[in-house]
C-alpha cells in the first residue's frame, strides 16, 4: 500500500514526513525510517515521492485505483 520507503536508500531526513498533508506518516520518529501508519489516507499526489532527495519513496497504486485503458491489441476471449 502506498507509499513504500526503501530503507536502504532512505537517509532519514524526514522531508516526506514533514510535507505529507494527509499525514500518512503520522507517528514517525525523527532520525528514523518513516513509518506509514495511515496508508489508506494517501491521496496519491506523490509529493513525498518527488521531494525525496534520494528517490527512496515510491507509490504503489492500489488495485482498485488502476487506470483502465483500452488494450492496443485485440482482446482474446478464449
Amino acid at each position, binding site marked *: 500500500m502506498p507509499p513504500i520507503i526503501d530503507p536502504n536508500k532512505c537517509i532519514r531526513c524526514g522531508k516526506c514526513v*514533514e*510535507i*505529507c*498533508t*494527509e*499525514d500518512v506518516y*503520522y*507517528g514517525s520518529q525523527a532520525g528514523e525510517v518513516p513509518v506509514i*501508519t*495511515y496508508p*489508506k*489516507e*494517501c*491521496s*496519491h*499526489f*506523490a*509529493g513525498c*515521492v*518527488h521531494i525525496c532527495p534520494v528517490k527512496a519513496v515510491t*507509490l504503489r*497504486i*492500489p488495485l*482498485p*485505483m*488502476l*487506470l*483502465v*485503458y*483500452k*488494450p*492496443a491489441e485485440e482482446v482474446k476471449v478464449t
Partner: protein
Amino acid sequence: MEEELIKTDVLCIGGGIAGLMAAIRAAELGAKVVVIEKGHAQYSGCGRMGNDHFETYIPEVHGPDREAWIEELLRTAKGEILISQNLLRAQFLRAYDIVRLWDSWGIPMKYKGSWEFAGHSFPGRPMTHVKYEGRFQKQILLKQAADRGVEVRNRVMAFELLTEGGQVTGAIGISTREDKIVVCQAKAVMLGTGKCSRLYPGLTPGWMFNDPHGGVQTGDGRAMAFRAGAELQNLEMPQRHIGPKYFTKFGQATWIGVVRDWEGKPAGTFVSKPDRKYGDMICEVNKLAPEQYLKAGKGPLYMDCRGISAEDYAYMLHWTAHEGNISLLDHMRDEGIDLRKHPIEFATYPLRGGGLITANEKAETSLRGLYAAGDEAFGDISAAATFGYIAGENAAAYVGDLPESCFSAAGPLIEQQKQMIDRLRGRTDGPDWEETQIALQQTMLDYAGHTRNESLLLQGLSHLRRIKQKAHAALIARNPHELGRSLEVLNMLDLGELTFIMALDRKETRGLHVRPDYPFTNPTLNQAHIVSRRNNKIHSQWRPY
C-alpha cells in the same frame, strides 16, 4: 490538555491558493497574519502539485473590450452559473493583475515568451484560459508570504469560529500531531478551506482519499461558518466531474485527444482528431457522458489521444505535470500505458457536495470580520487567487482601525470545546471517524443522491440525525491525527444535515438536484438558496444572485 494562544490581526484558515494569496496581500498592507493549515501548506489544497490553466482576460490578447469577453463567458457557460455575475466581473477586473504578479514572483505565466491560450474553450470562440507552469506555485507563494512576515503554522486544524457581538474574534483549533488546543485570537478570519469532497462515496468507495481534490477537503470552513451564523448557499446542488477511471484526477482540459467509444466513434461534435488548442469540449459540456453511455449500453467511453503528433504529445505531458498530475504520469509509465497507443477510460465521477459560503465581491461573508475565498466561496484557480488577494486586501483594511478583538465572552465556548475534545480522546469504545464516515456517505447517496423526493429526504434526514447524535455521543479518536479526522466527520455530518434540509426546501428539479415529485425547473427559484442559523434555528431564504 496543553493550550496555546495565537494572537494576530488576520487569521487565514487553510494554506491553499486563496489562503496564501490573502495572507500575502494582508501582510503587505501591514497586518499581522497567521496561516493555520491542518496539513502542510506546501502540499495542501487543490493547487498542491500544480495547475496549468488560469482563467483570465488579457487586453493584448482579447482586445480592449473586457465586457464583451465576459459576455462571451456567460453565453458559452458550461452549465448553469450558480453565483452572482457581479462576482465574475469582480474576478476579471483583477485576474490579469494577479497573472502579472505571479509571473513577477517566478510562477511562469507565459509559455516560450508568449501568452499561450489553450483548453476550456470552444473552437472558433474566444479563448478563456492562459496556460501557466504552476507545478511549484505553492512553494513560490509560501516564499512570498514568508518575505512579508506571514507566519505559517502547519498541522493546526481549526474547528470552531469564535464570535462576539456578531463579529468574528478568532477560532479554536487542535494540533493534529500532539494533544494540544490552539486558540487563535484575531480581528479578522479568512476561510480558504476548500470544498467538501468526502460527503458522498467516491469512485473507489473503499479508498476514500482517491478524490481529485485529495481526501482532506472536508468542508470545515463552511461548517464552522454556518455554526457561527454566516450564510451558506445552494448546498443541495451537488456537482460531478469527469476524468480518468479509476485514478481520479482533475485536468479535463489538459488532455489532447478525442472522447470516443470502443469502436472509435466520437461522443461529441467539437473535434475529430487530437487538437492541442481546444482538447475535446464534450468533457465540459456534458460531464455525464461516460455514465450516460454506460447506462445506454453504449459504453465505455475513452479519452483517445491516438494520432497525436510528437510535438503535441510532449506538450500534453509537459502540461500534465504542471497541472499537478505527475503521479498519473508516473503510474502510466510504471504500467506501460502509452497514450499514443492506449485510450484511457473516462468516468463521470460520483456526486460531490455542492454549495459555498455566501461572499460578495469584496470576499466578505455575512458575518462581520469573516472572509471566504477559493473553493469555499467559488471558482477555480483564477477565482481562488484573485478573491484570495481581494480578501486579504479588505481584511487588512478592516482590521486597520479595530482595537484588539474582544475576547471576554470566548471563555465558556472554549471551555465547552475543550471538554468535547477531551471526550473524543478519552473514549475507548465506539465508532471511529472511518466507520462514521461510511455511515454518512451511504446515507447521503441513498437518501440525497441521484433521485430525491420528499419521503426519501425526510427518511434520510431522520436517519442522518441518528448517526450524528451517536457520533457526538460515542465517537472515538485514538490519537491527535484521528482527532482531526473525527472533527472533519463531525463537520460533514452538519453539512449532510443541511443538504437534506435544503434539498427538501428546493421544490423543483434543477441540474443534478432531481426530484420526480417536482419534475420541472421553477424559473422563480433561479436565485441563491441561502441558509443560516439564527437563535439556534435554521433559517432559509431565496435571494437574487
